[in-house]
């Protein structure tokens, strides 16, 4: 009842050598519904394709089976032939008798027999194929970037420069991310602020960028090309449209809170900007530190503000924007090292984590760039302990990639700023990056001491109470080392943000076992995610340094651009759909779909699949007990029929 055409390819001798191709065509012609069956030297060649096109017309074929190489090879080629001949391209079936038959046997009997079985399966399946059409949707031009670290900044600028409108959403009251905390950056040792602040400014000034600081994404609806993202603007208690950034308020404010920027090493005011170069240069009130919010009295800032910008009644507000693509660049946290009690962080004042040290070096930092211990002493001996929590089976197995390098940077800066002896406790040195090995060699020459052995324990020195003892096994000498120092620097693992779970849920991303966002393919699609139209860049994907981060940001911008550049998008045609007459409302499909495509319709009591989100994996169809889901192109009856055909002979 179908009119099937079977076209058997010799592929020169590639197939013909171990499959009797003419016998195969002859066999095909005996199968029910097969109207023509032919064999030809090279089906994919122009004459081959023309033959198929011609036969479609002449024999009014409505199903085509090409018995040739792998579908991964030429499915597209032959689909085009069908399309050009006015047949729906999904009515094509490819039987793989090269990669999976002729090339894997020398026995022509075996090869021919298997080819017949495969072909028969294809005929069974082919009869049940249905034409499919892909849906075309409009695409929104704008892009959202979430996270205003160097990754987000770079991606935003890149996109904005191409003329696209960008919404940059930053959770803090300033953009800049971790990079803004550093003094110098390896390996070039250029001043972090010098390279970053111009970019931050550019963001603020750019006419195509809507900067949304102190904001969080609260809801994401829609799909590629058509996301509706709702953003929560957290209450700042300062009306930024009135504030002109004079910062008079910050001077008078009596409220005190720990400075996040300075890693809690010092206090800042309740009304504050995080650091002098912050963008935007407008303060927010930290509710928890504010005297008025705590005690109900104060309002000093309100009094001093000439522009009447202070607004204690401000509430969180929500806005929804429409974008075509999203770049997630939410960066990282450092692992909390307090639970690793062997290192005494939080217990001994002389133990610091890496970001605190960054602030100590920084001239805008708590010490104005002077390296002193908490009690004001200058350290005489400093130990830098690598791989704290990283490369550690008990914590994070991954390598944080930048620690070796910033530890070297620290060593250099210590040497520059103090006269202390600097010791590196490392497992091995990882300096793979442009100019990194050279940087390493340079530091070696700076008389830094390297002890190959992971720092095992930090304890208080019995002899000198304000000194610390670092214990380690030197794996080169095999000796147990006990080194008295004044300062210990921990290089903790870089780990995913604490709110990763919620971001993951919002954007329907997946994470690897540590919690870093997973790319669609580690090599071929490292910036895309399984959620179409959503890209990732920077450390939220995996630990990396600034050059890599920036490169990724540019890449993600380009990826996003390929979507929003288009007016229309064609969606996958082989998606799943629910037959409402059979759906029992069990919601299994809703529970399992990796893309959140199915949703339960409470009124109709059945599930429905959003085809724009569906990737056609077919998982839902197999968990649907009442077989209500039609996984297009791989429907239950198609698969069962193919199996029947394969097993017949």
């Amino acid at each position, binding site marked *: 009842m179908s009119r099937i055409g079977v076209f058997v390819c010799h592929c020169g001798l590639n197939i013909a050598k171990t499959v009797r191709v003419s016998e195969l065509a002859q066999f095909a012609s005996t*199968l*029910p*519904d097969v109207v023509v069956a032919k064999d030809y030297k090279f089906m994919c060649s122009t004459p081959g394709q023309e033959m198929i096109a011609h036969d479609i017309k002449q024999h009014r074929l409505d199903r085509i089976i090409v018995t040739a190489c792998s579908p991964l090879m030429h499915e597209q080629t032959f689909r085009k032939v069908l399309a050009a001949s006015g047949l729906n391209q999904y009515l094509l079936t490819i039987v793989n008798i090269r990669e999976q038959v002729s090339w894997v046997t020398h026995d022509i009997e075996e090869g021919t027999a298997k080819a017949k079985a495969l072909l028969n399966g294809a005929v069974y399946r082919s009869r049940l194929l249905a034409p499919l059409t892909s849906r075309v949707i409009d695409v929104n031009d704008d892009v959202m970037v979430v996270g205003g670290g160097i990754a987000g900044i770079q991606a935003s600028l890149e996109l904005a420069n191409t003329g696209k409108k960008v919404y940059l959403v930053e959770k803090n009251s300033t953009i800049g991310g971790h990079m803004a905390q550093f003094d110098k950056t390896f390996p070039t040792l250029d001043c972090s602020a010098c390279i970053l602040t111009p970019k931050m400014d550019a963001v603020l000034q750019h006419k195509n960028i809507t900067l949304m600081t102190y904001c969080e994404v609260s809801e994401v609806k829609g799909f590629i090309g058509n996301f509706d993202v709702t953003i929560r603007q957290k209450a700042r208690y300062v009306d930024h449209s009135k504030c002109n950034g004079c910062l008079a308020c910050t001077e008078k404010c009596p409220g005190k809170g720990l400075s996040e920027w300075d890693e809690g090493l010092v206090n800042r005011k309740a009304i504050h900007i995080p650091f002098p170069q912050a963008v935007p240069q407008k303060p927010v009130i930290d509710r928890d530190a504010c005297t008025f919010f705590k005690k109900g009295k104060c309002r000093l800032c309100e009094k001093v503000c000439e522009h009447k910008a202070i607004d204690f009644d401000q509430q969180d507000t929500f806005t929804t924007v429409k974008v075509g693509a999203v770049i997630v660049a939410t960066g990282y946290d450092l692992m909390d090292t307090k639970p690793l009690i062997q290192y005494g962080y939080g217990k001994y004042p002389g133990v610091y984590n890496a970001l605190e040290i960054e602030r100590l070096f920084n001239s805008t930092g708590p010490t104005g760039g002077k390296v002193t211990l908490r009690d004001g002493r200058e350290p005489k001996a400093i130990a830098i302990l690598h791989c704290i929590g990283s490369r550690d089976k008990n914590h994070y197995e991954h390598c944080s990639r930048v620690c070796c390098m910033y530890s070297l940077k620290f060593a250099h800066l210590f040497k520059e700023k103090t006269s202390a002896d600097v010791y590196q406790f490392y497992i091995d040195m990882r300096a793979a990056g442009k100019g990194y090995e050279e940087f390493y060699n340079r530091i070696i020459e700076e008389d830094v001491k390297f002890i190959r052995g992971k720092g095992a324990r930090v304890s208080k020195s019995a002899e000198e109470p304000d000194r610390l003892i670092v214990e380690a096994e030197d794996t080169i000498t095999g000796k147990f080392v006990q080194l008295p120092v004044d300062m210990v620097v921990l290089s903790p693992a870089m780990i995913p943000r604490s709110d990763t779970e919620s971001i993951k849920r919002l954007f329907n991303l997946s994470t690897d076992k540590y919690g870093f966002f997973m790319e669609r393919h580690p090599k071929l699609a490292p910036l895309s995610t399984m959620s179409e139209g959503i890209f990732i860049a920077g450390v939220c994907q995996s630990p990396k340094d600034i050059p890599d981060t920036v490169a990724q940001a540019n890449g993600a911008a380009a990826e996003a651009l390929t979507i929003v550049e288009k007016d229309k998008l064609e969606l996958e045609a082989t998606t799943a759909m629910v037959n409402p*007459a059979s759906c029992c409302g069990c919601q299994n499909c809703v529970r399992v779909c990796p893309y959140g495509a199915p949703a339960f319709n409470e009124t109709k009591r059945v599930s429905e699949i959003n085809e724009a989100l569906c990737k056609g994996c077919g998982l839902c169809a197999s968990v649907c007990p009442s077989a209500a889901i039609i996984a297009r192109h791989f429907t239950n009856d198609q698969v069962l029929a193919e199996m*029947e055909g394969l*097993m*017949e002979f």
Partner: protein
Amino acid sequence: MLKKTTIDKLPDLAAHLMEQGTLLAPVQEAAGFNFQVIADAKQVDLNFHNTVLSPKAAFFPQMEDFVRYQTGKSILEAVPVELNLKPTFLFGVRPCDVKSFTIMDIHFSGTGLVDPYWQKRRQAATIFGYAFDLDQPAQAEEFYKTLGIGAADPDGSDVFMIRKGGDLLLKGVTLKGEKLLTQLSLLTAASADEEKYFEDYIIRGRDFKTRFTFLADKNIAKKLEDIFHDSDFWMKVSGACLSCGVCTFVCPNCYCFDICDETLFSQGIRRRVWDACMFTDFTLEASGHNPRTQVFQKLRQKIKHKYSYHVRKYGVISCVGCGRCTKHCPVNIDIFSIVEEAMKA
């Protein structure tokens, strides 16, 4: 003429019948007694009250092949499956079940087009009816008495059998039955006393006590018709019903079927299989429209079909009161209590 043999000789009797054709008789299975094609004469066992499944499958098997075909080949090559039946002996059928055959006859071969399968199977069969034991009280769910069927009613049987202690008395009811009995040399003639016992037994069987005794069938039909639209009533009585098919599959009088094409590797068989008004797809149309989706509609159909529609159409209730539906209902729904309630409604 009344004949007799002893229960000990049952295997011999069975063996005789097996020589002449196919013997179907009750056999003890794990779940209870059921009719089986006898392969070993010793299997035949008359120590049963009634079989789990009704003997209707003897004439209306759960699966009846119509045609063998090959997909991809022309319809001209399809081959109807011929019934080549040997004479069949249906041995030990209780009077209520025998009655069911005569009721089903009206449907399958008595009106409209004749169902050739039913008819042929019926024609090939000789039925050995078997009286209930009047000294054993009826089981709680049985009510055939109400429907005018005696516990020892020979109507519809070809041969009727009554057990007397260790003896089995057999009487030819039809010419076919009579002839058969004369051929069976192992039977002996019964005495006059036994003859009297036999006749009395049949009369005594009419008064055999079952649960319900007060209804006249005509009223049932009318009454059910009256309350058809009283969905509250039907909802109430069907509250527990699961709409499974047990009650219909075990019923000797349920005859609904489906016709299915079952194909494997392009070889196929068109066959009929039992179906039930309780099943989802029974009335589902291609458009998705289904006139009967709710449990109460299905149960109402079942009950009204038996006690009302069937009476309107064929003049007789499509139930013989065997009680199987009630006995096997997983939630103990008692069809006759519903009828009783309907009469009160």
